[in-house]
């Protein structure tokens, strides 16, 4: 059944989009991530322009992280103070990202920047995740306990001034790295149409030593608010948010996520991280391939919006 998307200006098969929402939702529920880094490329693949895809996926991620955030809220696994601190910088990062998005689009280099950023981000993060989980797996085989959090061990981040205490997470860190992480996540979220959960969670664990009990819940709250505001900002500046597309994706996404969560709970943490690392790395390589291999058509057309 075809449905016409008013902003993307093309008809799509409603079941195809719904199925994509389900599949990405399943993966996002399984790994506790937003899934934007999968959804945006998929939408581009079926013919939706990168700009509309990025802008519309933001609201889809907002919906799936909202479900997650509510679940974690009930379990009291959200550090509100930490989320608010990350957010204050995240909003600025998002605004900056939306601005740069508009500028790059006018320069005809948006697709290139999206492609390059995906390659860099996904291959590095994917490789790190594979490395970490393989090491943990090997250690577990040898009978050594897998320790992610080393209490007492401090890095340079802990030497910075402006220290704050976050009670729920039981950490005492400087506000500077918190703001830095918030800004980076907000910025890349807006420009790449990704929630940034797969980046935020490792950053919070490695830099701030946030315990696993609160890290996912807190990350979801941050993702929810940055993506909801990215939706509003994209709608105001670029008028590219396709609400019909977003609605179909959201419905598929929230349903798929429920099944993903159940599957994820049956798997061991290291195995799960290895799978996610492989997935992230594969998507990165797919983008690299696209940039390096000669395109089928050297020419492309873009509509210039006249004021």
């Amino acid at each position, binding site marked *: 059944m*075809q*449905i*016409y998307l*008013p*902003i993307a*200006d*093309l*008809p799509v098969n409603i079941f195809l989009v719904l199925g994509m929402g389900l599949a990405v939702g399943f993966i996002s529920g399984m790994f506790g991530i937003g899934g934007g880094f999968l959804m945006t490329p998929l939408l581009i693949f079926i013919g939706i322009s990168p700009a509309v895809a990025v802008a519309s996926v933001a*609201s*889809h991620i*907002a*919906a*799936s*992280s*909202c*479900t997650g*955030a*509510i679940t974690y809220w*009930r379990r009291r696994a959200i550090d509100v103070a930490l989320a608010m601190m990350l957010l204050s910088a995240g909003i600025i990062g998002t605004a900056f990202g939306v601005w740069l998005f508009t500028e790059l689009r006018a320069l*005809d*280099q948006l*697709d*290139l920047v999206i492609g*390059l950023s995906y390659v860099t981000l996904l291959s590095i993060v994917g490789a790190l995740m594979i490395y970490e989980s393989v090491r943990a797996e090997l250690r577990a085989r040898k009978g050594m306990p897998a320790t992610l959090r080393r209490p007492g061990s401090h890095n340079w981040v802990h030497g910075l001034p402006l220290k704050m205490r976050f009670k729920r997470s039981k950490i005492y860190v400087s506000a500077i790295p918190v703001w830095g992480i918030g800004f980076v996540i907000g910025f890349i979220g807006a420009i790449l149409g990704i929630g940034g959960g797969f980046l935020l969670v490792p950053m919070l664990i490695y830099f701030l030593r946030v315990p696993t009990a609160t890290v996912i819940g807190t990350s979801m709250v941050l993702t*929810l608010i940055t*993506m*909801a*505001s990215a*939706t*509003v*900002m994209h*709608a*105001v*500046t670029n*008028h590219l*948010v*396709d*609400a*019909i597309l*977003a*609605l179909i994706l*959201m*419905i598929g996404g*929230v*349903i798929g*996520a*429920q099944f993903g969560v159940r599957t994820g709970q049956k798997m061991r943490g290291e195995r799960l991280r290895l799978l996610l690392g492989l997935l992230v790395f594969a998507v990165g390589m797919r983008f690299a391939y696209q*940039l*390096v291999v*000669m*395109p089928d*058509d*050297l*020419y*492309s*057309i*873009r*509509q*210039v919006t*006249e004021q």
Partner: protein
Amino acid sequence: MTFARALILLVLFGPFGAPPAMAERLVVSLSNNRVAVTSSFVGENLVLFGVIEPGPDHAALRSNYDLVVTMTGPPETMRTRRKERVLGIWVNIDWREFVRVPSYLSILSNRPVEDIADADLRRRLQVGLDYFLLTQRIGPDIADTVRDDPFRVAFVRLQTLYGLYRQSSSAVTFLTPSVFRVAIPLPSNVPTGSYPIDVKLFSGGQMVARTTSTLDVIKTGVEQYVVDASRNYGLIYGAATSLMALLIGWFASVVFRRD
């Protein structure tokens, strides 16, 4: 006096060469003057019917007519970009801006336009994709380039690929020597707006009659509402979309609650 009259004639008919005899009259009718783009819109096939009638001087109709129908969509400014390899990756390096060119263009005839009129007349009347005026921004000027300009060729090729540009020499069918039928395909990705239709009648390599008609492509219902809201009320639209996301997220957490 005669000189002045000749001058007036030249000014009036200059662009069209010799003043057409206009011994014939064209009467056309479109199967549908309004096409509504709804959520189930997958394109449409329009039919234009027409009759060739004797003109005011009641001259007899000729035996061989040719018809060229040109339908254009609302003007749009588009950029054609070319990728080149830079440091191993493919980057948009060069581009040309096509200023206010038709977003949709169909040139339909009963036989190849090359056989209908000579190149000179085709250029003056913009008959055929090769001679259709596609204005590019060249420095401070706006002009059409040579036909084989690589950006022009790529632009026409891509627009044809998307189904937006089309030249067909079999879309016009003469049912009788003076009654014709034109099949106009409208793909699903057509932009909304007004589509002028220019119908030109040729005989013996000369244009003998011309008439126009218009098609309106409009978005209706939810589609129009969404487009209007997003263009004119970006903030409210964005806020509503975000709110929708929150509601769906909350709804899912209630429905699937397991504790």
